[in-house]
């Protein structure tokens, strides 16, 4: 395991907490863990006390750097590094925001954390705010997740009442206010600068970068913005120490993360596994293999915004570097499994409709591009396409990639470009046979059943 590739190293490493530790999903099965009394009975807020008593903020930033924790929202940026970009002093107050706007198709881990163990999130917010010397933190919860939002609001209320938020927390002299805010339905608000616009009471339009949020963020102040799961991992890192957390995963992708398994498997669900665990382990062992004994056709390993993998890539380790080497991304951890009966064009159409509907409309390549892509895919899927449409799809993607205001436009191109590369024959079949290669569309006259764009 000493080779240069970041493979999983469970065999040669000493693993202090066994092969499958539960850092961020621990105690989620404890009844009533969403209430502060039960959470404290199970050691809750002990990590906060340890952080306040045993660490200076700078030491905490260093500890998180040492742990190797990287953002769990999609980009995988090193958390401690992100924190250290905050200027040491600034005329405006600095803020911390937790991005609980989970809405990447295929991803459903943050909602679980909020619903089942909201105090772990709140404890992480306090620890993260202390580390970054922030005195006002915001938790921005996706509007559609009403129950999750209420769970977080109650946890914050209980923590205020227990003196864990507010003035002079646990006698440390550290003050913190936490505001829980709710979105109102817009995928784009998961993009950090759009989220800040939304939190300021505006449309969720992304901002030009630079300046980055660490320099000019919420209300113009230096701002740290982290994903729900990232923040919720902090209590475990403080409790066990960076070395224990960092003993898991690969050299560059340390620790564990929650993989969200969905699609055509027997046991879809959330699985916390060390980074670098092979896809096969997740799909076959934890996920119970393919539903109905079908053959695997393709996997989307990191939410709908990343390129497909093929069955012969099932042994790819699920860490940032290995996924990049395989031509895709680890993204948000949303692993979507497609079986042999899935029409690729149909699936790609469905994913592209999402980006069309969720494009904020601010920039032209994304607004017009996603709309056009859907029209072409719809035509192909329903048997009315031309072979030149396939190249046109690639051409439009090329005109969006890297040319949109924010990553949403790039994201929309991933499934299209990779599916044309991997499944071009299936696209051509749609043109020549006027029907799908597999699935229900393969056996019926298809052109008549086009669903109008306005119907969804």
């Amino acid at each position, binding site marked *: 395991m000493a080779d240069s590739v970041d493979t999983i190293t*469970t065999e040669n490493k000493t693993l202090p907490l066994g*092969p*499958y530790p539960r850092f961020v*999903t621990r105690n989620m*099965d404890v009844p009533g863990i969403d209430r502060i009394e039960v959470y404290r009975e199970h050691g809750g807020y002990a990590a906060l006390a340890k952080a306040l008593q045993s660490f200076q903020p700078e030491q905490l930033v260093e500890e998180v750097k040492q742990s190797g924790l990287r953002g769990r929202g999609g980009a995988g940026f090193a958390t401690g590094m992100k924190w250290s970009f905050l200027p040491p002093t600034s005329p405006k*107050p600095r803020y911390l925001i937790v991005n609980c706007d*989970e809405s*990447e*198709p*295929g*991803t*459903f881990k943050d*909602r*679980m954390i909020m619903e*089942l163990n909201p105090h772990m999130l709140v404890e992480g917010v306090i620890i993260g705010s202390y580390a970054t010397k922030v005195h*006002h933190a915001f938790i921005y919860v996706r509007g*559609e997740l*009403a*129950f999750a939002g209420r*769970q977080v609001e109650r946890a914050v209320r209980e923590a205020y009442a227990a003196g864990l938020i507010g003035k002079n927390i646990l006698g440390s002299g550290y003050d913190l206010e936490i*505001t829980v805010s*709710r979105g*109102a*339905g*817009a995928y784009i608000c998961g993009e950090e600068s759009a989220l800040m616009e*939304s939190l*300021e*009471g*505006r449309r969720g339009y992304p901002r030009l970068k630079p300046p980055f949020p660490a320099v000019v963020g919420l*209300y113009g102040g230096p701002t740290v913005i982290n994903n729900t799961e990232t923040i919720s991992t902090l209590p475990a890192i403080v409790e066990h120490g960076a070395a224990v957390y960092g003993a898991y995963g690969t050299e560059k992708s340390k620790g564990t993360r929650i993989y969200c398994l*969905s*699609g*055509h498997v*027997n046991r*879809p*669900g*959330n699985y916390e596994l060390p980074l670098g665990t092979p896809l*096969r*382990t997740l799909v*076959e*062992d*934890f996920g*119970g293999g*393919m539903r109905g004994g079908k*053959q*695997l056709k393709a996997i989307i390993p990191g939410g*709908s915004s990343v390129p497909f993998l093929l*069955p012969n*890539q*099932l*042994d790819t*380790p699920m860490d940032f570097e290995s996924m990049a080497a395989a031509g895709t991304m680890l993204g948000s951890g949303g692993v*979507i499994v497609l079986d042999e009966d*899935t029409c690729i064009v149909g*699936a790609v159409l*469905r*994913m592209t409709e*999402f980006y069309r509907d*969720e494009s904020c409309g601010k920039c032209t390549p994304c607004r017009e591009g996603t709309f056009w892509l859907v029209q072409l895919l719809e035509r192909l899927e329903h048997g009315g396409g031309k072979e030149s449409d396939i190249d046109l799809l690639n051409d439009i993607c090329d005109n969006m990639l890297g040319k949109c205001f924010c990553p949403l436009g790039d994201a929309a191109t991933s499934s299209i470009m990779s599916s044309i590369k991997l499944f071009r024959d299936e696209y051509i079949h749609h043109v020549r046979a006027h029907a799908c290669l597999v699935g229900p569309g393969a056996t019926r006259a298809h052109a008549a059943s086009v669903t109008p764009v306005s*119907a969804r």
Partner: protein
Amino acid sequence: MITEEVKARMREICARYPDPRSGTLPCLHLAQEAEGYVTPDGIAAVSEVTGTKIDEVESVVTFYSMYDRAPTGKYAIKVCTSISCYLRGCDGLMEHFEQRLGIQRGQTTADGSFTLQGVECLAACGMAPVLQVNGEFVENVTTADADALIERLKRGEAVAAQPGAWNVLPSKTGASAQQTAAGSGSAQTGKAK
């Protein structure tokens, strides 16, 4: 009509932020709860408490998908239509609702009981197909479940607010995971064992 009591709650919300304008989204949620949808009165009230112009509030209302600008049915059924639900049959479920309710997606039944909508990924992909009734989740929905749900709602039974059907002890199901964690080397099939 937005009452003074609702306005007082709006002001309390705005006070939680360094800038009252940040209260715009939550206050619009309140206005919608109070009147069933976002009315011109609701917009005026939010404009007043947040200290922003009517136009600015309207631009927010028209941007976000959760604000209704017309009355909806007593029960808003929102069926997720994104990729993971698509792979597990949400289109058939949607068509079933359309037949049962006698309306198309986007419409409300004549008696004002049900509004049916297709929505984007609801973060419940492991429990697909999934829907929400007035914001509360119903997961792993079969067409039989859909029929039972409609009957329950017709009797006036609301959908309970509760956590999702999470697999909270996932490690128990992965008995052989440890052996294969180092990678098995064979690389061709994803077939179930």
